[in-house]
């Protein structure tokens, strides 16, 4: 059996999924787009449950909604588990009605019933179940109450293929007449297309092109439908969209008035209002946000992160050293040893070196998300971010980007829209990451001893400025059209669940290793080969004779307009793709006399600008490919970054050349 888990955002869907499956879950990608497809086996059964994205409606507007709808229609799960927040039942039932129209075996998991009871509210479960025509099981996902009962009911419902008994939500009147007239027209078509006639009717009335195409209506039928809709709109005095929403909410209000005794104001809500007096306070909100995010940043890239990373890399280095000793004692061929140690192991080491940061950062981020603070960040920062065509939540990946691009790109997963995600992924690499600091330090030591701070600050702001300019251009060109509306639910503050925090950390770490391993290790080996051999595949002692150096020489002319048309700098930039720090070590080897001998001051500024903006590193590329979900688009992003870096470095070189 396969079940689909569907529900609103903030309904406790992920918590229920975790409760159902324990740690037995896998993350895949829905084909084509990078929305997580989480699936797992329900504990104690052989049944699979698929965690679909949190949505408010299955109108096909966002990719999450399309995906949910297509999954239910095409994959035909044996049952739908619809999770509902009992504290917010009216709005949650809106999606439920749409699901019921699909006419698939459905069970409602009424979550947070414990909160309803604790606040002296009550819900008549039996009556609710009768009025909606499907089984309703009260649960508490957080406390894992009612889960086994839910599983039992879902299994029975799936086995008996029990279709929802109720699907007619309208009272006699113009809307009712219209729905029935249209339903009559399309019924045969819907049967032929194997979709629920009821669902198809409403989608056709709401002008859903995808469903219309599936139904293959003829011109007469289209005209008859249009006529019915116009008549209904005139009689009802509302356009069809408002009329249908009104019809559904009227039904919901009626059901709720019969079954729900609402608590006046819940303890949780009161607590949230009190917390928000401070956290979204007019003057305090932004300073508090800065303090919180700086603390997280500092802990991740400062004490905790560094401690873990140092310990971790010490272990890795020890292991590598041990293997090296073993290989040396064995008397293995030097080249093979170098391949293993400098190629393969170095690659593996660099994949692993990202783990501490990812784990620590996602520990904090999942707490921000689970407590509900992330929604406050979106609320507080929205206006600022909207100036560059993004929404409030994007601020988080941007700030993380100053630490490391890899987790920053990974953190875009929680952004509400695909447009926001893509644009944030494109712009995040312009935030100067900590790995670039050694390069800045190296160059400023040589060229700008007196203006060290100024140059560094300039670079950071240069990155931000590039991101802002790029976003303005993107808004005009690639991403024009509708920015996604900001209509966001503000959840109550909650204590994060230890289980979901740990699961998320584990999931992110595993995901990164699985997805990034091949790219990073393969790329590291490739660069090692290019560095270690000459064009006839003889081992080179002199780095200036390697294939990489020859390639660098071929590319020299491309970089001449930037003031560093020297293969040594080009080589350094290529090795910098393994890890930014490598730029320095490569230059130290290739230019033993010190870089002032081969570079002008303007050239140094230009090189720094290029370093700031060009493709971060293989790990970042791997993360971007993972999130964008397309190798072609990832290539496009890489080309875009290099082009921007080139253009900016060129301008810096021209301007600096004129003044210095």
């Amino acid at each position: 059996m396969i079940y689909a888990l569907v529900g609103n955002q903030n309904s406790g869907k992920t918590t229920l999924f975790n409760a159902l499956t324990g740690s037995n879950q896998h993350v895949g990608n829905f084909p084509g787009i990078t929305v997580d497809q989480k699936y797992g086996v329900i504990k104690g059964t052989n049944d699979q449950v698929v965690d679909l994205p949190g949505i408010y409606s299955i109108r096909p507007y966002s990719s999450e909604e399309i995906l949910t709808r297509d999954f239910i229609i095409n994959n035909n799960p044996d049952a739908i588990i619809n999770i509902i927040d009992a504290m917010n039942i009216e709005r949650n039932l809106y999606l439920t009605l749409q699901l019921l129209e699909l006419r698939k075996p459905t069970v409602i998991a009424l979550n947070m019933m414990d909160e309803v009871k604790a606040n002296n509210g009550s819900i008549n479960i039996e009556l609710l179940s009768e009025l909606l025509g499907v089984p309703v099981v009260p649960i508490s996902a957080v406390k894992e109450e009612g889960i086994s009962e839910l599983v039992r009911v879902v299994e029975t419902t799936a086995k008996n293929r029990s279709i929802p008994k109720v699907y007619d939500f309208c009272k006699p009147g113009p809307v009712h007449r219209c729905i029935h007239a249209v339903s009559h027209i399309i019924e045969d078509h819907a049967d032929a297309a194997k979709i629920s006639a009821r669902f198809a009717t409403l989608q056709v009335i709401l002008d859903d092109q995808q469903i219309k195409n599936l139904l293959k209506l003829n011109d007469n039928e289209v005209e008859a439908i249009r006529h019915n809709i116009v008549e209904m709109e005139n009689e009802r005095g509302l356009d069809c969209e408002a009329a249908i929403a009104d019809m559904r909410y009227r039904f919901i209000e009626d059901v709720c008035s019969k079954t729900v005794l609402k608590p006046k104001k819940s303890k949780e809500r009161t607590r949230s209002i009190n917390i928000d007096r401070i956290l979204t306070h007019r003057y305090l909100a932004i300073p508090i946000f800065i303090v919180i995010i700086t603390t997280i940043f500092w802990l991740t890239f400062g004490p905790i992160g560094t401690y873990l990373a140092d310990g971790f890399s010490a272990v890795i280095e020890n292991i590598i050293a041990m293997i090296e000793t073993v290989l040396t004692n064995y008397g293995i061929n030097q080249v093979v040893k170098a391949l293993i140690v400098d190629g393969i192991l170095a690659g593996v080491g660099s994949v692993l070196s990202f783990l501490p940061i990812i784990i620590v950062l996602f520990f904090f981020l999942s707490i921000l998300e689970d407590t509900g603070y992330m929604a406050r960040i979106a609320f507080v920062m929205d206006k600022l971010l909207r100036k560059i065509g993004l929404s409030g939540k994007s601020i988080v990946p941007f700030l993380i980007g100053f630490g490391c691009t890899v987790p920053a790109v990974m953190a875009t997963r929680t952004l509400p829209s695909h447009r926001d995600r893509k644009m944030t992924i494109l712009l995040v690499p312009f935030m100067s990451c900590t790995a670039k600091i050694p390069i800045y330090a190296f160059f400023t030591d040589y060229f700008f001893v007196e203006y060290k701070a100024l140059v560094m600050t300039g670079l950071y702001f240069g990155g931000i400025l590039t991101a802002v300019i790029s976003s303005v251009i993107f808004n005009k060109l690639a991403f024009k059209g509708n920015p996604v509306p900001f209509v966001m639910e503000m959840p109550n503050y909650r204590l994060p669940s230890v289980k979901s925090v740990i699961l998320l950390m584990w999931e992110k770490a595993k995901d990164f290793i699985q997805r990034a391993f091949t790219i990073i290790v393969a790329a590291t080996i490739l660069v090692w080969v290019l560095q270690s051999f000459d064009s006839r595949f003889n081992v080179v002692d002199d780095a200036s004779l390697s294939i990489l150096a020859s390639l660098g020489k071929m590319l020299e002319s491309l970089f001449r307009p930037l003031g560093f048309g020297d293969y040594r700098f080009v080589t350094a930039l290529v090795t910098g793709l393994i890890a930014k720090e490598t730029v320095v070590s490569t230059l130290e080897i290739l230019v033993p006399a010190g870089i002032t001998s081969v570079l002008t001051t303007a050239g140094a500024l230009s090189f720094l600008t290029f370093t700031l903006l060009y493709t971060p590193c293989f790990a970042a590329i791997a993360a971007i490919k993972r999130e964008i979900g397309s190798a072609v688009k990832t290539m496009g992003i890489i080309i875009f970054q290099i082009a921007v870096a080139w253009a900016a470095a060129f301008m810096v070189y021209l301007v600096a050349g004129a003044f210095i």
Partner: protein
Amino acid sequence: MTLDQLEIGKSAIITKVNGNGTLRCRLLEMGLIPGTAVEVVKTAPLKDPIEITLRSYVLTIRLEEAQLIEVQEVK
């Protein structure tokens, strides 16, 4: 008047939802339909977006979207 003009702490009944396409549908689906009671809770530090309650939940929307919602204040 429109929802963006409603003062903090004041309640109103929605009379009409303007706009078009996805945005309007989203507003309707979230329960902002004519006849629904809303209350403005607060505004963000930069005055936009605003936080409102309706149907016993809390929603945040931008002023731009609030302008699309016509309301009648409840005294």
